[in-house]
């Protein structure tokens, strides 16, 4: 018996009970559509997280000065000894696997160009900073080591600065004043967009870290003339970042002469891990939603089973007749199984259409990121077929085991 004919029989049977078939399908349609929407939303936010990590650099570590503990009393953040140029030099000497190391001394200051002004973040950096934080110089050039050492009055400006201070005009070569100190713009930074926390990353001006210490931040106080704020560094990608992190902690404790058992007065952070952890809840939630959708699919399957049982009972005489004219038990089994699977597949087709449409709407009208992946469509259709076989099997088997005489006699 050809499968094609069996499918056509199933289609005829389903068409004869069009309304009932549709209502039965509804369960599958809703199940499949919600699976697709939920998975799309959850993979959309997952993709967003990965992008954020990429923006940050997955091999980047941050060292910050922490709190000091004196006699059991914790000082506030930054109360411990600051990090210094010396620390950076020693880190570079000690660890060959560091790809780039930079200090970062930030402050906020008004900036003036011609007769416009703008208050923005000023960050004193080493030349490596650009590489470590994955910035791209759009026009002009990065700082040279010489400029960094000598405290040159040069600056790199972000896109927001170009927009607000220069009205979008070319800025390389122009002179700006930061806290009344004249600087020459030597380069511009390519746009980075918003951070995961929704703040614009492009509202920033970079200057050499020594210049920042001497001219801008005015915090070379506290007897530390070569402080560097936080240290950002990137680790060779072939290196396990967690092990590198532990080695760094160990080395920093040595540098800072911490007694064994004493608390760290600095912190080493792996930001990509941090973001992952922060978003773990949201991906768990996504999974939970997908699981709920899968339950909807199972409920749809039970609906299929229910209606197939009704259909088998209703068509007992038909089954008897088919057996009498030569249908084998397997033919009857296949007939009802194919009917259930066809029901599910047609349902899943509509479910996919609705699910994709709904995902499209979510993307268009909400902030929720949506990523529709093609495999999930096939998985959805496949699982619908599975539901059809699983829940269709019992009724189909029941039909195939009917005694021809009793089936023919059935009223």
């Amino acid at each position, binding site marked *: *018996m050809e499968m094609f*004919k069996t499918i056509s029989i199933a289609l*005829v049977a389903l068409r*004869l009970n069009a309304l009932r078939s549709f209502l039965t399908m509804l369960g599958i349609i809703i199940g499949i559509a919600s699976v697709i929407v939920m998975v799309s939303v959850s993979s959309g936010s997952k993709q967003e997280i990965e992008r954020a990590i990429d923006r940050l650099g997955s091999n980047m570590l941050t060292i910050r000065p922490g709190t000091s503990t004196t006699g059991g009393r914790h000082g506030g953040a930054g109360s411990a000894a600051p990090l210094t140029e010396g620390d950076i030099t020693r880190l570079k000497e000690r660890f060959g696997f560091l790809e780039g190391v930079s200090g970062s001394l930030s402050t906020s200051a008004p900036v003036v160009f011609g007769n416009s002004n703008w208050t923005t973040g000023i960050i004193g950096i080493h030349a490596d900073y650009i590489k470590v934080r994955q910035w791209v110089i759009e026009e002009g050039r990065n700082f040279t080591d010489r400029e960094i050492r000598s405290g040159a009055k040069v600056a790199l400006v972000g896109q927001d600065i170009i927009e607000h201070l220069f009205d979008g005009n070319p800025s390389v070569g122009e002179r700006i004043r930061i806290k009344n100190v004249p600087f020459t713009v030597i380069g511009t930074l390519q746009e980075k967009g918003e951070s995961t926390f929704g703040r614009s990353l492009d509202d920033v001006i970079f200057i050499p870290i020594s210049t920042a210490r001497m001219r801008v931040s005015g915090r070379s106080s506290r007897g530390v003339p070569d402080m560097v704020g936080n240290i950002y560094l990137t680790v060779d990608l072939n290196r396990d970042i967690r092990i590198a992190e532990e080695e760094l902690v160990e080395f920093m404790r040595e540098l800072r002469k911490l007694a064994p058992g004493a608390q760290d007065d600095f912190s080493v952070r792996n930001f990509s891990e941090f973001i992952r952890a922060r978003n773990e809840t949201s991906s768990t939630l996504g999974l939970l939603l997908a699981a709920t959708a899968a339950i909807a699919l199972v409920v749809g399957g039970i609906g299929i089973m229910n209606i197939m049982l009704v259909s088998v009972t209703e068509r007992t*005489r*038909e089954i*008897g*007749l*088919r*057996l*009498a*004219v*030569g*249908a*084998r*038990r*397997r*033919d009857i089994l296949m007939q009802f199984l194919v009917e259930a699977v066809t029901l599910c597949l047609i349902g899943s087709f509509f479910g996919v259409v609705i699910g994709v449409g709904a995902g499209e709407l979510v993307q268009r009208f909400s902030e929720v990121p949506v990523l529709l992946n093609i495999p999930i469509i096939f998985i959805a259709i496949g699982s619908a077929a599975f539901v059809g076989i699983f829940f269709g099997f019992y009724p189909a088997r029941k039909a195939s085991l009917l005694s*021809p*005489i009793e089936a*023919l006699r059935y009223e």
Partner: protein
Amino acid sequence: MGGEVIHALRDVSLKINKGEYVAVMGPSGSGKSTLMNLIGALDVPTSGDLVVNGLNLSGQESDTLADFRNLTVGFVFQQFNLLSRTSALENVKLPLFYARHLGSINAGERARKCLQQVGLSDRMHHDPTQLSGGQQQRVAIARALVNQPSVVLADEPTGALDTKTSVEILDLFQQLNDKGITLIVVTHDPEVAEVSRRNLLFRDGRLVDDVSMARR
């Protein structure tokens, strides 16, 4: 109730030859329907042998029995048992759908011929509800004939029809028998008994009378 064993048929020894026209008679519960179910392989005997067209039906696989029902016998039922909302032509094609050994034959063509044979060429695309009882029974007969069976088994074929229509159906049976098809008809109808060539009378599961008629 309980463990009581009921023998629908017992001690029946019977031979029906090719081309015979047999009427099986008897009161309700006499076992005549069971006989027909056994010959048609809808049921299997608890004991004893039953050979139809060279095949011993006792102890066969259900697939073998299905193929036997498909190719060797054709059934005609009292209630016609046509698929509702399915055209006469499609109803007649049904046994061909399960005919595995036929290979690629033109099912539509063959079904059309059978409908012609029962005089329904102009009703092929009608649904059973659009046909009279007699016409429905003709569709059922066409369906029984479509796989060119050796035996046609009819269970009260005129039971649901009026006298005039019954006569038409019996004429049709006569024509089929004239073409060499073996006919076994279970019936209460004395008319049927009259046109057949051999009458089997059953009572309480036993064959009590076997009368052959002279050829008319």
